[in-house]
């Protein structure tokens, strides 16, 4: 039986597209990353999300959400949280490792930007994990 996408599902696909379109080039083509580029990226994701979500809302007649939507949302947030916690533990472990060895492989003036990228990367990966989990759960029906 063919099942068209619900409003929430369309919204999730749009979010994933926006995240991959904005964060992908930043993290995979990371030449001359700077604080300004991080700010630009945040602005770009906000603008892109507003545009995409407005288009979806305009073309979707039935925009109700129900108990299944809420359960799927919670499942996504649970996966997102565990991903973020795991990455944080991994990151702290690596910091401890470098501290124990007594060296830090990054030049002093780049430390701030490096940490900004690392923590922002963790948030991005967690968010993509959350969105992907929700999309997969919708397809599997729960």
């Amino acid at each position, binding site marked *: *039986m063919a*099942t068209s996408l*619900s409003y*929430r599902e369309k919204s999730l696909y749009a979010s994933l597209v926006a995240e991959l379109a904005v964060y992908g080039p930043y993290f995979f083509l990371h030449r001359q990353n700077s604080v300004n580029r991080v700010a630009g990226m945040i602005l770009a994701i906000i603008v892109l999300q507003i545009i995409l979500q407005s288009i979806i809302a305009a073309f979707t007649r039935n925009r109700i959400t*129900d108990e299944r939507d809420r359960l799927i949302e919670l499942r996504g947030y649970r996966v997102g949280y565990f991903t973020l916690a795991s990455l944080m533990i991994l990151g702290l472990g690596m910091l401890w490792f470098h501290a124990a060895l007594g060296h830090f492989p990054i030049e002093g003036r780049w430390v701030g930007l490096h940490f900004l990228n690392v923590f922002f990367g963790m948030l991005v990966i967690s968010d993509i994990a959350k969105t992907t989990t929700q999309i997969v759960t919708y397809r599997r*029906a729960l």
Partner: protein
Amino acid sequence: MPSIRNQIRELRAARNMTQQELADKVGVTRQTVIAIEQDRYSPSLETAFKVATVLGVRLEECFQYEPRGKRS
């Protein structure tokens, strides 16, 4: 696979009701009705009662509990 089975599709068809009509009356999305009919999602007790009420049957005529492993 949930251990709650249901006869929603048959009951709905007997009343010439579409999935969208049932969804609107119960207050869920059509995708949720589809998932329930395909036994891929067990609704909450509240939604189950609403479905039975809309279809005009008792809850046990609409939903049946089958413990896992006892299904033929």
